[in-house]
């Protein structure tokens, strides 16, 4: 079973990398980009076959390592 974790900065946390990407898009002539937020995708291959258990496992991984919940939100997708 595969899982995909999205880690993004919480709203209200300044994202200087996103701001730099937005600036660069503007410099390339891409118009109408109001905001850019940069995050991470982490893909996991799990031996667990039960979807609910897998989701629980991955959430636990997010809380303990994959995300820093002081500044980041995460979402878990079981594929």
């Amino acid at each position, binding site marked *: 079973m595969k899982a995909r974790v999205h880690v993004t900065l919480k709203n209200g*946390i300044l994202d200087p*990398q996103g701001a730099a990407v937005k600036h660069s898009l503007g410099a390339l002539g891409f118009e109408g980009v109001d905001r850019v937020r940069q995050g991470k995708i982490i893909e996991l291959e799990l031996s667990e076959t039960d979807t609910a258990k897998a989701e629980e496992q991955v959430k636990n991984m997010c809380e303990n*390592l994959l995300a*820093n919940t*002081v500044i980041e939100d995460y979402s878990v997708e079981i594929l």
Partner: protein
Amino acid sequence: MRAAVIQFPGSNCDRDMAVGFDRASGDNNRAQLVWHKESNLPKDIDIVGIPGGFSFGDYLRCGAIAARSPIMRSVIEFAKKGGYVIGICNGFQVLTESGLLPGVLMRNSNLKFVCKDIELKVKTTKSAFTNAHKIGDVVTYPVAHHDGNYTADTEILKALHGDDRIAYTYVNNPNGSVDDIAGILSDNRRVLGMMPHPERMNDPALGGVDGNKLFESIASALVSA
């Protein structure tokens, strides 16, 4: 003073830190270097140093993987029992990631790696790390980091200010950290995290000796039998 300095893959200035401890305590080769895969600290340690560098290549987040290494369980336990811990640069990031210090160190606001000598103001003398100073003393230490932009929520900042837990601030903020914070103390004042490198400025051959004050403070506070 019996010091242990933790080494992760990608640590730097770990030996400089050990030399700093040894010189201040007047006892050569006493500080012990401890590999991250060890599960226990040496016995009768007075202070643990977590050095700078780019542990585990800064993968995932700076300090995140080091903070979950076997030795850190022992360091966390040591700190919770009232042990002294100092984390410098990447060591500060490891301390926030391990929950021993509040807040987080984010990418520098101008996105640039900053590497230069900078001035810091000593904000409190009520700690084992800064007791040899006077409040307002200005020291020059090198900084070398990409993620030194300290951030915390308003509640944490209120506690840091209210409880006199800000150890150092930048005179000219190089990374966008909130309230110019360069170093903070834990609530029991025994854990210090700071971005600048005192151990890189404690010998005339390195360009200055300002860093000696920090190690001397520690040595005088932690005189061991």
